[in-house]
């Protein structure tokens, strides 16, 4: 099946309107793109977070597909149970087999921090599901606290910027590579501005023989401090600066995706977000230089993995 937007508009919208996510939020855009790309009907588990809170205000729901939420940390475990129950019911002849896609949406708080061991366990057990991390680099739902996905130097309410500290002091966790180390069939990093790349990855994840993980950068206009209409531009800058490289790991083969191997300086992306204004405008360039140095090193390491994969493929 091809990915043509005008054809995709013919599919019934599975995620509606009237939710309470902020104007300009990237999360519903990612959700709509994921749902539009799926071939099979989905069963969705939600982790606690902006998306869950804002789309399932009792007695209403924004979803037009089955959705289950149990707790913050255990969305991966919940969908494991749904998938195992489905297989058991089919095996016992109590349900007709049907094409279904088991899907999880969790934020970076639920994925990088609170639900990490539960996700790791579900991946190791090999349940067939797609885990989509909507990464807005912080606990935005509870008021912009730092998470282990928050970038170095970023202002949050728990890493305030001032004379003593320049925002967050630690480098973020590289969750996509941690998941890749689980050796599951499909792992990818995507961005919300590049719908074609994101949807292609969703199709590959759906076709994968086992668990799949897609880490999507979803810029948060409230938490990152930019105007509501700049969401897609900020997403693009995060990718083009190398802060969020687009790549996939398909059955152990690392590949850059989404075009554009040329990078722009990280300062371009940092300047688009006022959460970094204290390090981009105060004349002290040391934090920006440190971010650039770390991004360069990670980029280099990623290129090496891709080259090794390409070499191994051409030799086999």
């Amino acid at each position, binding site marked *: 099946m091809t990915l043509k*937007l*005008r*054809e*995709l*508009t*013919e599919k019934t*919208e599975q*995620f*509606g*309107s*009237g*939710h*309470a*996510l*902020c*104007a*300009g*939020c*990237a*999360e*519903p*855009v990612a959700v*709509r*793109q994921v749902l*539009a790309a799926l071939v099979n009907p989905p069963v969705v588990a939600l982790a606690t977070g902006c998306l869950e809170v804002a*789309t*399932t*205000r*009792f*007695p*209403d*729901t*924004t*979803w*037009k*597909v089955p959705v289950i939420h149990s707790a913050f940390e255990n969305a991966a475990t919940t969908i494991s149970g749904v998938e195992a129950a489905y297989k058991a019911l089919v095996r016992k002849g109590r349900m007709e087999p049907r094409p279904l896609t088991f899907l999880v949406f969790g934020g970076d708080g639920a994925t990088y921090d609170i639900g990490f061991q539960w996700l790791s366990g579900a991946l190791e057990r090999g349940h067939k599901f797609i885990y989509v991390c909507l990464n807005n680099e912080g606990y935005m739902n509870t008021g912009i606290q730092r998470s282990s996905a928050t970038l170095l130097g970023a202002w949050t309410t728990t890493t305030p910027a001032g004379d003593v500290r320049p925002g967050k002091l630690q480098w973020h966790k590289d969750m996509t590579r941690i998941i890749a180390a689980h050796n599951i069939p499909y792992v990818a990093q995507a961005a919300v*501005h590049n*719908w074609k790349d994101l949807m292609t990855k969703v199709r590959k994840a759906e076709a994968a023989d086992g668990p799949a993980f897609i880490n999507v950068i979803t810029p948060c*206009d409230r938490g990152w401090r930019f*105007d*509501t*209409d*700049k*969401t*897609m*531009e900020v997403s693009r800058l995060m990718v083009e600066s190398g802060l969020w490289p687009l790549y996939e790991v398909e059955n152990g083969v690392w590949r850059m995706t989404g075009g554009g191997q040329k990078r722009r300086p990280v300062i371009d992306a940092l300047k688009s977000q006022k959460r970094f204004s204290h390090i981009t405008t105060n004349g002290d360039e040391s934090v920006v230089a440190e971010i650039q140095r770390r991004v360069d090193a990670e980029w280099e390491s990623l290129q090496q993995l891709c080259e090794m994969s390409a070499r191994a493929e051409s030799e086999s």
Partner: protein
Amino acid sequence: MPDEQAWREIAIGGTEINPGSTERVNTGAWRSEMPIIDFSRCTHCMICWVDCPDACFEISDTRLAGIDLDHCKGCGICAAVCPTHCITMVPESSVPVKSSESGA
């Protein structure tokens, strides 16, 4: 709003059984700027449709037909991503209020 339910009346597990029912919520009342489409320049590429957080673009036979102003929050992403710049954001106060969106 439907009648408030006491906790004994709520389904076990807090089950919500009305798919897409948040559509009754008029989030269009949040808006301070309104998108206006110049259809003479629209190529129906659907980039606005795929990038809209609120699923507000009305499609008719794979062509862009209009905007659901009852739910559009006026973020302006559509105007920013439109390749032909045919969507402009205008202040809400400059547009006469229509009956469908006055009842917030």
